[in-house]
């Protein structure tokens, strides 16, 4: 196995606040790697830095050994990195089908074709059906996305990053706001996608339980910095992680960094 994605000394400041503090993470190919931490730990900022939506103050990001730090967002997708967002980000007034179809079309070379109906490009339609089947939205293909229940919108979003068949999937709290019953279902879906497609998945979560059973490796962030890294077993045994999670009131080791 080789390292597919690497963050080197990544740092981001917002004014006086250091949101991400010199973080080093290596993500190996074909693994499900989770980044967890309590609210305000800087996970989402870190995630945005790696996926190219934010520019770091310092540090670099490498993908397959190439420096992708300054790559524009739309190009990272073409390299094979798909990402989802914490806040549901879809085309609310297009149908579920069209949402996914647009995602499929993005990677083809037909997007500048002007005169043929989009319905005549079979390859995207077939791929769309495939993806909709994968995330279980076939029945709802013709609904307007905004009318879907929240859980299904999360699935749709997953479908949209899955559509171009990326090598790395970056998911920011895919279970945010979902009912406890639905969480295992979605996580199983993510796991099966990762295993069957031999993909690399980077998962950002604030709920520790969600990732324990599915992750290959876990990185714990706390107040912008790396707190621990290891297998799920190692992490659940780590006392620092426990205290960080439940509240850091009596944790003398915690730094007074963020304020």
């Amino acid at each position, binding site marked *: 196995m080789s390292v597919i994605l690497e963050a080197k000394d990544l740092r981001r400041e917002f004014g006086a606040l250091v949101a991400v503090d010199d973080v080093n993470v290596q993500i190996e190919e074909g693994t499900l790697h989770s980044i967890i931490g309590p609210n305000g730990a800087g996970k989402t900022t870190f995630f945005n830095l790696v996926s190219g*939506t934010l520019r770091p103050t310092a540090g670099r990001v490498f993908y397959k050994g190439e420096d992708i730090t300054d790559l*524009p*967002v*739309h*190009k990272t*997708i*073409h390299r094979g990195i798909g*990402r989802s967002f914490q806040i549901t*980000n*879809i*085309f*609310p*007034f*297009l*149908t579920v*089908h*069209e949402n996914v*179809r*647009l*995602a499929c*079309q*993005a*990677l083809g070379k*037909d*997007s*500048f*074709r*002007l*005169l*043929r*109906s*989009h*319905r*005549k*490009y079979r390859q995207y*339609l077939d791929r769309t059906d495939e993806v909709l089947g994968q995330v279980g939205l076939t029945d709802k*293909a*013709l609904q*307007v*996305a*905004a*009318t879907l229940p929240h859980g299904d919108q999360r699935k749709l979003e997953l479908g*949209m990053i899955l559509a*171009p068949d990326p090598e790395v999937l970056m998911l920011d709290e895919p279970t945010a706001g979902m009912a406890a019953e639905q969480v295992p279902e979605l996580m199983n879906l993510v796991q099966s996608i990762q295993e069957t497609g031999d993909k690399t998945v980077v998962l950002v979560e604030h709920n520790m339980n969600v990732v324990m059973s599915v992750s290959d490796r876990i990185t714990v962030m706390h107040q912008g910095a790396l707190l621990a890294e290891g297998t799920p077993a190692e992490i659940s045994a780590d006392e620092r992680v426990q205290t960080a999670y439940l509240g850091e009131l009596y944790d003398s080791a915690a730094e007074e960094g963020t304020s």
Partner: protein
Amino acid sequence: MTSTTLDQSAGLGDWLRRRRGLLASFALLVAFPFVISIIVDGQGLAAVVNNDLGNARFLQGLAIEVFILGIYAISYDLILGVTGILSFGHAMFFAVGAYGFGILLKTFELAWPVAVLVVVIAAIIQAFLFALVLPRVHGITYALVTLGFASVFWIVIQSSDLADYAGAEIGLQGVESPAWFLDTTNERFIFYLLCLGIFFGIYVLYQRIVDSPAGRVFVAIRENEDRALMLGYNTFWFKTLVLVIASITAALAGMIHTMHQPIVTPNVAGLFWTVTALLVILIGGMGTITGALIGAAVYRLLEYYLDRWFGGASGLLIGAAYVLLVLYVPFGIVGTWRARAVRIKQGRDRLLRLFTGGDDGRTPARE
């Protein structure tokens, strides 16, 4: 207008059936001058072909104005209604065609195909000028910058410095028709048919564009540009493409205008002409393409009759109608009609807020 089924083996009969509304209205408009000639003027059919005076001739002229306005508005609909770019410089797109064509014919005495070619090239350059600013400024600032561009053009075109070319405040006059079929005075019926043809051609072309893969990306940019970018679309180039298409179309409308009107006044470069385009697509329904044409007809006829009935006060009435439209019928004619057909229960409030006509969320891609 478009089918909901996926069929690649549609025969001619099927094609005709699907396009029956379009074909019927085309036929109707071809027959229109003859009908008027017989019923209103009491003249024979030959009167139309011979360009005899009468209501038929006058109404052909009015219809040509509707076609010009329609072509102009449809190009604005592509920019604002379909792609969601708020540009307030659209009059310049039209005026470059109108003035450019006239000046090239009159002062430089170019052959008309060459003049058309030069105008198209100018339109493309102009579209790139408008696109150049896109990555820097957004939303209202973009509207202001484009308004600025158009204002510069408007000021320069009517300044005394260019009086020899553009005729200063009076406007460009004395452009002679370069070909018999472009002669609105002597060959009114032929010119009418030509404009009708272009009008329908543009309409079908735009329908196809909106339905094409690129057209779907335009809609996606309107709905959520960030998301489109993150799907991997380089939205800048798509927006540039939109501007190029719209610029050429509007310039085409401008060229027909130059042929049809005895004087090209600086008004066609002013803010009010942009507002007219806005008004037309508001009446018809933003982002619906069809709406731009219906809106053009309604607007031009309303303007004509209000002016006849109320004279000076007609401007006031048009203004009031515009304000009421913005407040109470934001979807326009086509949009309202479609929204009524759709009735997305929860989405409706939100729909109101966007200028979508609702054709996107609804058209199912497959069954």
